[in-house]
């Protein structure tokens, strides 16, 4: 009998049937991966087990006994912990206060600081994390913050831990710590569910893999019996090949972007490189190496940047977004929910947002022209949505990214900067985004692509510029590409 089992679980949300009659069994002392494209229902399944959502149908059993985790607190009482992407903390409070936020120890109604620290230390010790409990949370790195979150979630008696994309905001080093921790927890007999997009991690840390597609259960297999291609086939329902991009076979044109000694105090220093017409230049580096900061500085969003940026040989005044846009630069930001989209607006409004004046005559929006042009773009990018009226908050990650990208294709640009273009995007949409980037490069766009996914960087780019701690540590041409070479420059 399985330790934990979910039977015939179904769950619907507005606009989507997230889970449809899913049954899976999970074993003790094992890491069980939940995989699938965005919107496949893997996070939903994790959240149902952790009591965040209540299923519409179906039951959950622990050791054959039905449980009803209608509330995260009840789930915690049953030994079920959820470690999720959104870190929910009070940044101004200390580690200890945050860890015991749910129930401060008190003495006659007054805070018992001694016992608070003691308890917090015990929790951190449990997962082998060494963090000073008196540090304000805001001063921790993302990785440390996550360790605190895990410590709080695991508590002292967790039997089931659900990790929902735990490494999405961690550096390589921090991820390693997490994997070590998972190994320790496994040795203690904890059952773990691991939701992630990252194939390499899955094959490293997991024992069993369950694939979901469109809310339905596709397969549950031991890791030894599956492989990458098979998984992708199961996830997408069709083959996705990393084809050799066509732009590599064309000669790059004239220089579009030249960056000379670009600096911004505390962010990056003396960064120089160039990008030519028809070329995709990759930018690699660890989280915090300053890649996003360089991109936003080129786009005019960093008023303190110094140095020189030339567009087609002409100097670009720094710190002025509108000037950057006038010189035909476009930026697809890293965090589409924060900076890429107005989530409360519909697809139409979002796509036309950056060039709304282009659709206007004497200040009045020409709605029919706007509609025609936006529709053309969303069709070209294969945005899947019931209509252009659909509010973007309800779209899947892949479709949101396509909308954010469509925004910059309303008008032709010369330089397109894409920052983590496929983060949190499902495999199918990823392939479509790669194809699109290749296509526009072939048409003569200069593209600067920032990415933390090495395979994508190495496959798509003609050259890769690597940053480390704000400095350019090297540049590799396509012929010299290898994961090892890039990693060496990165770390």
């Amino acid at each position, binding site marked *: 009998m399985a330790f934990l089992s979910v039977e015939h679980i179904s769950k619907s949300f507005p606009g989507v049937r997230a889970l449809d009659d899913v049954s899976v069994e999970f074993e003790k002392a094992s890491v069980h991966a939940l995989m699938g494209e965005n919107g496949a229902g893997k996070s939903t399944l994790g959240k149902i087990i952790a009591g965040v959502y209540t299923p519409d149908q179906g039951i959950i059993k622990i050791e054959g006994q039905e449980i009803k985790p209608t509330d995260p607190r009840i789930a915690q009482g049953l030994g079920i912990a959820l470690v999720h992407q959104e870190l929910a903390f009070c940044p101004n409070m200390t580690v200890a206060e945050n860890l015991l936020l749910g129930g401060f120890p008190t003495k006659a109604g007054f805070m018992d600081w001694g016992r608070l620290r003691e308890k917090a230390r015990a929790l951190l010790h449990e997962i082998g994390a060494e963090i000073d409990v008196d540090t304000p949370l805001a001063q921790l790195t993302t990785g440390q913050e996550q360790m605190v979150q895990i410590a709080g979630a695991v508590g002292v008696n967790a039997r089931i831990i659900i990790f929902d994309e735990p490494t999405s905001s961690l550096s390589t080093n921090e991820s390693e710590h997490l994997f070590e921790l998972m190994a320790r927890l496994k040795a203690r007999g904890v059952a773990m569910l691991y939701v992630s997009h990252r194939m390499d991690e899955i094959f490293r840390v997991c024992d069993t893999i369950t694939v979901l597609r469109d809310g339905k259960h596709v397969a549950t297999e031991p890791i030894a019996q599956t492989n990458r291609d098979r998984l992708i086939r199961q996830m997408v329902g069709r083959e996705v090949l990393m084809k050799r991009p066509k732009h590599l076979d064309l000669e790059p044109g004239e220089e579009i972007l030249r960056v000379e000694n670009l600096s911004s105090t505390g962010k990056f220093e003396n960064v120089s490189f160039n990008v030519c017409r028809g070329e995709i230049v990759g930018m690699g580096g660890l989280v915090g190496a300053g890649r996003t900061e360089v991109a936003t500085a080129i786009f005019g969003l960093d008023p303190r940047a110094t140095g020189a940026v030339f567009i087609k040989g002409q100097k670009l005044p720094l710190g002025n977004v509108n000037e950057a846009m006038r010189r035909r630069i476009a930026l697809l930001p890293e965090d589409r929910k924060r*900076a890429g989209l107005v989530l409360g607006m519909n697809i139409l409004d979002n796509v036309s947002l950056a060039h709304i004046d282009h659709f206007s005559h004497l200040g009045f929006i020409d709605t029919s022209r706007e509609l025609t042009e936006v529709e053309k773009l969303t069709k070209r990018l294969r945005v899947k949505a019931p209509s252009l009226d659909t509010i973007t908050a309800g779209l899947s990650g892949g479709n949101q990214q396509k909308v954010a990208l469509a925004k910059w294709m309303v008008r032709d640009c010369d330089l397109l900067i894409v920052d983590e273009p496929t983060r949190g995007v499902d495999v199918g949409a990823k392939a479509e985004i790669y194809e699109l980037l290749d296509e526009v490069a072939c048409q003569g766009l200069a593209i600067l692509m920032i990415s933390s996914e090495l395979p994508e960087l190495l496959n798509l780019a003609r050259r890769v510029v690597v940053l480390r701690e704000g400095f350019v540590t090297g540049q590799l041409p396509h012929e010299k590409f290898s994961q090892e070479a890039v990693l060496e420059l990165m770390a």
Partner: protein
Amino acid sequence: MSSPGKFSFSFSKFPEGGLILVIIALGLLLALFGGSVQLPKFETTPDGKRARVFETNASGQKVPAFETVNKFFNARTIVQIAKDTSFFAIMAVGMTFVIITGGIDLSVGAIYALASVSGALVLSPYGPSGGAVATALGILVTIGVGTLLGCLNGAMITGFNVHPFIITLGTMAIYRGIAFVQTNGQSIGGFPEGFRQFVRSEILPGLSLVPLIVMIIVTVVGGIFLSQLSIGRKIYAVGGNEIASRYSGIRVGRVKLLAYAISGLAAGIASVLSLGYYGAGSSGDGQGYELNVIAAAVVGGASLVGGKGTALGAFLGAVILQMISNGLVILNIPQNYSQIVIGAVVIAAVLLDQFNALLAKRRLLAKASSIKKEVVRSSDTPVSLKPKTT
């Protein structure tokens, strides 16, 4: 917000429909339960003046004639309510611009007072014999001061990067203080007669409709501004997500400045009407108006989080609040209760709005399975992106 394609009158597309229903319901309620009242009868004499109508009673005496009318549903009461509404409604339309950007303007009442006092100080020296030039100058100064004060709010909010609540809380006191210092707390009157006659001019016999007409013009212009102009779209975007707007090349500071300037402009327009209607301005004008104005905008569907709200909604919200306030009088409920009722209505309106959003979500859920099937079936070709409305 802007809806692509043709306009459709389903409730999800036309959220103000609910407000109109509420107004109709309130009107019916007042007409049915308000009872009737006796009003003196007037007629227009051949030389254009209005005079009482007399009739001969049973004993042969000539007595003034009265007519029995519905207490609520008669032209004079309705125009009276419209006039009372107009000041708030005009400012609520302006306030909606600010609220859509995610801000708030607590100083509208003070702007209204300072603009009013400034206009009064310009108009008063001309005296009752002042001509059209004096009138035009007075109107220009009143509206100009209002706009300028709004601009100042906006400039400080964007320039100092301080929360609008704090800045406008400060200017609320400062502006009113300046008005007080300028006038020593005295009421200032004695305006050109032409100005008063213009604002109070009776377009229909016995009914001065100028405030009503100005209110409608402000609402229509505000509505067109927000829904049809590209700058309107930017206002929604800034309130919806300021960072994403900045990343889209929108000059966020300018957009916000404009929103506060419009709020000030609206307050200026309202004070022109009040100067003309009441014939005096004082530093105590518009005390506490900011709360009524914000309440009207909120009842009209504007969300303090930003990104949501319409000019028509603000107008209808003001109408609802004023109908309730006047309605209490009509229903013979002591005026003292009006604040309690209005407060409750504001909260109820927001709850209703949330309930509505929940219903919309449910409806979407019901559609979910069919949409999902479509997407699955055509996993290689995207579903048609034709908007629902076409």
